[in-house]
């Protein structure tokens, strides 16, 4: 397995909420990534973002791991929640908050922070 795939896997499995997106939370490069991120923020989720744009290999490896063809992809505790439409729909119905509370614990909002992981270098900021 490649180092890149290892890092992607590590983010999916170990970050409470991971979003693979185009751009970063500070500089979103795509409407769909923005919709998913917004839904996560509105639900008060801690967010760890990975920008897939710097290298096409990131998207290819991610797709292989998740079996999901489009970006963004949202994971909670290692499990794929879905793309922008699902995340947004679950956000609007309130199910996203329920799911977060179930998987992360009721207090998931407390001290929720945003991080960005560079899967090419492994840096986490």
């Amino acid at each position: 397995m490649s180092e890149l795939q290892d890092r992607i896997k590590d983010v999916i499995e170990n970050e409470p909420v991971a979003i693979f997106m185009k751009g970063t939370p500070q500089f979103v490069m795509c409407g769909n990534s923005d919709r998913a991120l917004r839904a996560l923020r509105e639900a008060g989720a801690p967010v760890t973002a990975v920008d897939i744009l710097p290298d096409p290999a990131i998207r290819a490896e991610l797709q292989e791991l998740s079996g999901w063809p489009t970006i963004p992809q949202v994971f909670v505790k290692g499990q794929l929640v879905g793309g922008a439409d699902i995340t947004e729909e679950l956000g609007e119905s309130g199910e996203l908050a329920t799911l977060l509370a179930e998987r992360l614990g009721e207090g998931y909002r407390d001290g929720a922070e945003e991080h960005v992981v560079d899967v090419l270098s492994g840096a986490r900021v």
Partner: protein
Amino acid sequence: MATERLETLLRDAFPDPGTVDVEDRTGGGDHFQVTVTSPRFDGLSLLDQHRLVNEALAEPLRDGTIHELRIKTRGTA
């Protein structure tokens, strides 16, 4: 036309009594909103419903015909 190709693929995957609607969101032939109603979705999670749509559109997703896809699914139950 890409819109018709997507419609054909979706109709094949979700035949009557399902309904399929494909909208070219920007007029550019690569940003699509698809709305599908089908008994195949009954009892499935949203994730699995969207997975079925992604599977039906695997080819245009892979070959770059679809640059951006929005999916709305509904069961019939």
